[in-house]
């Protein structure tokens, strides 16, 4: 791998990491909120309606091709549009062609891959256990971290793996809004695409192979850690 490919690799990992963190922070409460629907008898109708609308909205970005999502993001990021204008007046920079723009785009596009496995996990959890924890004095937040997170560990694990991997592989949006700036927006997927386009198949093979091996090893290790953790709780 050349130095510029290494820069791209580093950038990719950074993007995937930051995007995943953003998804964890924002997607977790969203998934929880959405999964509470079936139990929420006491809630108001408005909340239910809102949930019914938000739930399909979350899945919506993925029915559009990423390049198209990217195109619309480009429109939204433009200083001529309201969000773009706000961002520019706040930070003095444009969202397009910046790392933060990529994070935003990737987060929007990967959101369903984070939220939905978690929703499955949340909704199949035994509600009675949460009740038991409540009677033992655990506050809602305490319950979340001490009980729900470990009980839904597999859901979290898969949600995180999917969204991380998906961000690594994400390309269409990045292509659209990134501008291919080394050090800032030229992630690995773009570099790989460039190699293919430039008929530089040798470098493309090396990069693709490297990425595959790296990802396989990483995932293999992650799954192994996950299993060990699981076994750990089983016998300890």
């Amino acid at each position, binding site marked *: 791998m050349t130095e510029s490919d290494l820069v791209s690799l580093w950038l990719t990992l950074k993007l995937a990491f930051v995007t995943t963190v953003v998804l964890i922070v924002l997607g977790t409460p969203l998934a929880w909120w959405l999964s509470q629907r079936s139990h929420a008898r006491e809630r108001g109708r408005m909340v239910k309606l809102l949930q019914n609308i938000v739930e399909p909205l979350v899945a919506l970005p993925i029915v559009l091709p990423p390049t198209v999502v990217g195109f619309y993001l480009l429109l939204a990021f433009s200083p001529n549009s309201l969000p773009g204008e706000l961002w520019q007046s706040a930070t003095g920079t444009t969202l397009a062609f910046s790392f933060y723009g990529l994070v935003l785009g990737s987060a929007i596009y990967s959101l369903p891959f984070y939220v939905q496995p978690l929703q499955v996990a949340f909704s199949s959890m035994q509600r009675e256990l949460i009740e*038991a*924890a409540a009677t033992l004095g655990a*506050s809602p937040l*305490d319950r979340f971290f*001490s009980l729900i997170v470990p009980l839904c560990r597999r859901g979290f694990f898969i949600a995180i793996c999917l969204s991380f991997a998906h961000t690594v592989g994400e390309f269409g949006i990045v292509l659209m809004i990134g501008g291919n700036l080394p050090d800032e927006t030229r992630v690995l997927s773009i570099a790989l695409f460039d190699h293919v386009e430039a008929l530089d198949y040798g470098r493309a093979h090396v990069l693709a192979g490297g990425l595959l091996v790296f990802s396989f090893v990483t995932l293999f290790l992650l799954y192994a850690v996950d299993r060990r953790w699981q076994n750990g*709780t089983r016998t300890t």
Partner: protein
Amino acid sequence: MSLSIQARVVREGGFELNVDVDFPDREVSALFGASGSGKSSILRILAGLDHLPGIHVSFNDTVWQNETIFVPPNQRHIGYVFQHLNLFPHLSVSGNLDYAETRRQSGGGLSRQDVLDILDLSSLLEKLPRQLSGGEQQRVAIARALLSNPDLIVMDEPLGSLDQAAKDRILPYLHRLHRSLEVPIIYVSHALDEILYFADTVFEIAAGKITGTSSVIDFSVSGSHINQPEAAAIVSCRVNSENEQYSLTELQFEDTHLLVSAGQLTIGESVRVKIPARDVSLSRQRNESSIINVIATTIEDIRDPGTGASAVVKLKCGNQFLLALITRKSLQELRFEIGESIFAQIKGVALMTQHD
């Protein structure tokens, strides 16, 4: 009026709960009723697990729930032993206990070692709940609720899957615990013997309504169950003296004496004795037999169901009552009559608990 609950709710499916109960302060209150009568529903409402309209709950001058207020379960400090246990499956036994212990809302409380010893959990600490037998799981659930050092203990059939030996060890422990902690306990059980042993006040419940409230002493001799073979009278006595040789203790029961088996009792202490109805036989004269307790009583009431083989005779002795379960044959052959003086032969081996 430490804990009071008024609830009028209808569950989906049509079950209607309509109760207004004041649980006495610092006592063990038992909820006794058939399967499906609403016992667990009441406990869930108490603990704030079913947040429905139409409910008022207050505890020690704090309103837990009314139209506007709702104190969430985690702020109620209730030690709840669930009917379905609800152990945390990802935590070992000690993890489950730690969960409760680290979230104690107040200092002091029980010693972990005591709880482990009594509930015989020391060898299970490293196991996960699914590696435990049914009875082991139940013991862990009890331990967990106790270790949270609650202000109120609520137990939903806590001894249902335990063998007699375990029950015989745990019930007295719970009793002692209750005496030393003075925490009110709401106890749900189908087992009459547990209720008679442990409860101070019994609330009878049927089809979502409270059908009777009485002290366990009154309950024991007038509840709807007294025709059952398990019926027993609970009487209150004072410790007179001990007979070490036979591990028997002489109790002052009204103006007569009872000999019972007992552990270490303090002379002068007030105790409760359980006298199973089937252990009492009636006779017009004192006979010599292996029966050591024979006391003079008067017949207060005769409950002859008219069918079946047995009838219950309620006997008065001073201000207290006994029950005798006899065959209808002997009832009629011996022609017992209300108001008649008669000897009750009591087989001496009756259970007992200490009460103040």
